[in-house]
């Protein structure tokens, strides 16, 4: 087994890690652990990107990996930690939609994602083409997490993790997006998290809780 094939297998390993982490996030109740899981997912993404960059020789993917590292492994987790410290929701155990049911739906979603990715992956000439299905599954699982969570912080994390999935899909299927697009997305995510942070403080101010069920009262009858 040569080094090339080993690296390819390592990419698959990273992909699987991403998927497992996505499931772990769905199952996790505590917000602090959720942030740790998100950081780990970012790290796996960075490793996968570096591996793809090394295999394909696309130098701009190194930059992408660097940006991801700074943003998703360092900056955003720090921001999230500060938010939950300030809001004192560090140890919040949130009420959750029945976890086993959610996991089952998640499994169906993974199967669906693989079905979906099959024709695209066979067309793609990229090295990591087998991973497209996993990437799509990550996106869908994160979306699912946004739906079933009742509080604002986990929803934000779900949103960010969806972006992780998308980024991985881009790397896996097309060996990365143009640099300008990646920079744009990175910037969007950063701005998005700042705005969501402001919103979370505002929700807290208004309702003394981060439970978004309070927002239902805003509906116009």
């Amino acid at each position, binding site marked *: 087994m040569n080094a090339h094939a080993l690296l390819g297998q390592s990419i698959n390993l990273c992909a699987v890690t991403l998927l497992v982490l996505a499931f772990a996030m769905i199952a996790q109740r505590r917000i602090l652990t959720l942030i740790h899981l998100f950081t780990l997912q970012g790290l796996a993404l960075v490793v996968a990107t570096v591996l793809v960059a090394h295999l394909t020789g696309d130098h701009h993917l190194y930059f992408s990996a660097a940006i991801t590292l700074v943003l998703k492994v360092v900056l955003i987790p720090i921001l999230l930690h500060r938010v939950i410290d300030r809001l004192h929701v560090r140890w919040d155990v949130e009420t959750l939609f029945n976890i086993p049911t959610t996991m089952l739906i998640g499994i169906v979603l993974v199967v*669906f994602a693989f*079905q*979906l990715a099959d*024709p695209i992956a066979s067309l793609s000439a990229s090295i990591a083409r087998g991973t497209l299905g996993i990437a799509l599954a990550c996106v*869908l699982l994160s*979306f*699912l997490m*946004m*739906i*079933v*969570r*009742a509080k604002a912080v986990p*929803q934000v994390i779900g949103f960010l993790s969806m972006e992780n999935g998308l980024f991985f899909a881009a790397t896996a299927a097309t060996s990365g997006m143009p640099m300008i697009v990646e920079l744009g997305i990175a910037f969007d995510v950063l701005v998005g998290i700042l705005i969501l942070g402001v919103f979370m403080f505002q929700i807290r101010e208004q309702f003394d809780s981060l439970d*978004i*069920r309070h*927002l*239902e*009262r*805003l*509906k*116009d009858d």
Partner: protein
Amino acid sequence: MLPLDWILLILAAWLLIGLAGVAALRNTSFVARVLFPLGAAGALAVAAAALAALFAGPQTTILPIGLPGLPFHLRLDALAAFFLLVIGVATAGISIFAAGYFRQGEGTPPGLMCLEYHVFVASMCLVVLADDAYAFMVMWETMALSSFFLVTANHRVEAIRRAGFLYLLVAHIGAIAILLCFGVLQANTGDYSFANMRAQQLSPLWSSAAFLLAIFGFGAKAGILPLHVWLPEAHPAAPSPVSALMSGVMLKTAIYALMRVAFDLLPLPLWWWGVVLLGLGLATALFGVVFSAVQTDMKRLLAYSSIENIGLLFVGIGLGLLFKAHDMGALSALALTAALYHVISHAFFKSLLFLATGSVLHATGERSLGKLGGLIRRMPWVAWLSLIGVLASAGLPPFSGFVAEWLLLQSFLFTTGLPSSFLNMLIPLVAAAVALVAALAGYVMVKFYGVIFLGQPREPKLGEAHPASPLERLGLLWLAAGCVLLGLVPVPLIELIDRVTRVLTQDGIAATVSAHGWLLLSPTSLERASYSPLVFLLAVLAVVYLTMLVVHRFYHGQLRTAPPWDCGYPAQTARMQDSAEGFGQPIRQIFGPVFRLERQLPTPFDPRPVYRVKVEDHFWHWLYRPLASLTDRLARAFAVLQQGRIAIYLLFSFVTLILTLLVARW
């Protein structure tokens, strides 16, 4: 300088006049006495330039305004020039009248009115000049919006706001249809210039689609059945010069656009297009005239009368299309000449009548016919000048309305030459119905004039009615002069219209008409029909004079003033005269099923009897109410989706995503 440049210069000047009005926002005397007469001078100049353009060939230019890469293409051909002439001459009279009309403290400040008014007029000119769909739509919408603000000048009154909303709604629904029509006409080439649309050879299916969309879109603006509902609401709501401008001029832009699309942009017409227009026009004309006969508000009466006239115009255009589809160019030109003659004649007399109602309204503060009467003694100028308008509107010789209706009936007489027996059977019926409409229009005008100006004042306050100001009289005089002149010497105008019909149908009737000189009008041949207005006028005058002479000579020979015979019933008051309701009652009986009546009759023992009658339109209850409630119900059904829960909203996106992916995958 070419006529088109002059016209563009005047349009710019109008904008400046409007901006000057905004600068002097509340200075009523400056706006009214200086700016509006200037605007009227501009309108005259537009008319003169349009006249010059009728003799010159088509001109085009490109205005570098609008979006980048999408400049306004303008083209001044004979059709556009004719309608500019109509806009110019009618606006000149209306602006002069408006100079004497606007007073202090009526809703919108006068300076703003001045801006909206001149933007409105300028946008109508540009609608007519536009040579690509983009410029046309922008100007069409500018026209709708500026007239909306003019209609809602008195926006503190709720009924006026409602009328304005209805107007805007119908205008926008129509605009959607027009946009789609242009979309079909450009035949997927992506080039929206009219030159490109002319070059396209659409299949019958698509050209019919474009034609029907055009009828819907332009019919909404013109007030064709069943899209007429905004007209009787918006006209009474607007200040009188604005009503005059909308009814006399703006409705004509829709007629222009319909002619442009049907005769110029579309390929050779199909025969049934003409039948559709004939049917719609006839229904509209009958509907309008019957409803105007039962109105008790003088401006609503005129608004319904406008609906009737638009119907007649549609009939003329439909007949023109029918002849053109059967390749009978000369007859098509005759029908179109009748329609175009009616366009300019209606612009004169309907503006005149709306302005006269404005003078009456200012003098008495009263719009309801039931409270007017006997004004000929207090306001002789307005009364005598509106008599001319009324006679023209009733289609009586020797005024302009007669020439138009006579030409229209003449063109009906030739339909026996059509190759289809079905049409040959159908069209005499249509001609009979048109004659009925003309007769009923006369009835309506007798009611309008008799109740307002003749008889005794029905209210004591009418004794204090003040006559119209000199500028108002000047405006009325100009429009009345138009009615008389068009009635007496029709031949020169027909020679002008000939240039338009040559564009539309490649044929005209000027050659046959001018062969007999200016005094005699004979559209086909002397043996078939001829009309000599001057001789007619002389005969009428001579008969009247001789009768008077004979009466004076052989009867008393002097005037005797005495109380009229009171039927042996001495306690008479002015309220015992025939009223508007009473006069319209036979029509209400005969055409009973057409109306939706709500009547409240007092019992004979009621000490304070009140009689109330409300005449409504079936279309409200059969078409508009169901549509409105359907929209409401649909909206409520969709409101169920609005749960207020983020999770639900996310779920919607999630399900949509999954479904989209499924569809994309399999």
